[in-house]
């Protein structure tokens, strides 16, 4: 799905600038201290955690 294909670039940029205000820079700074491999390992751990939450959610609330 393309986002508003006729949207002028300036507006697109404005949306992104607005969203940048909400980015948690503390998380970014912590991540930048890690090696690339450590970042990917953290991503896999996050995937595993998300999958476990989905499983628990299905068990508790149904499919």
């Amino acid at each position, binding site marked *: *799905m*393309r*986002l*508003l*294909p006729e949207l002028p670039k300036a507006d*697109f940029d404005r*949306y*992104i*600038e607005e*969203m*940048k205000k*909400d*980015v*948690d*820079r503390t*998380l*970014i*700074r*912590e*991540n*930048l201290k*890690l090696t*690339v*491999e450590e*970042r*990917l390992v*953290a*991503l*896999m751990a*996050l*995937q*595993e955690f*998300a*999958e476990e939450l989905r499983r628990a959610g299905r068990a508790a609330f149904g499919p």
Partner: protein
Amino acid sequence: MTDFPGLLQALQREHVSFIVIGGAAATAHGSPRLTLDLDVVYDRHPENVEPLVSALRPFKPTLRDAPEGLPFVWDERTIRSGLNFTLSTSLGALDLLGEVAGGGRYEDLVKETETIRVFGVDCLCVNLEALIRLKRAAGRRKDLEAIAELEVIREERDKTELR
């Protein structure tokens, strides 16, 4: 869970030419965002298609979201006939892209990569500038936050380099 080491090592074992892009590349650059698949741009040169097929064959690639029962044969002819493939494999979801909006084909994008060493594999990863451009070119609603985050990473990196 996507077995990133498994996928990267499988591709490297057969000397497949590919570039990591998408969410995994964003992670490599420092994004804390969750992604569930590995996106790569692969070289469509015939000499690369054969090892690509061999590398993934043991992991039984099938098309994601294809109707059940739709025949799918993982071979060189399939790769040559198509371009971009969203695959399920026994190692996780893998998007194989022959061409990507804003980046073109492997031979175009390879100029904008960095070599990263992960899980014992040296592989090409799209650089941060090009990754931002690819996300912008895709123009997807879900990418807006990701673009904002990548631009913040660039700012934070620049600050660190200035210190």
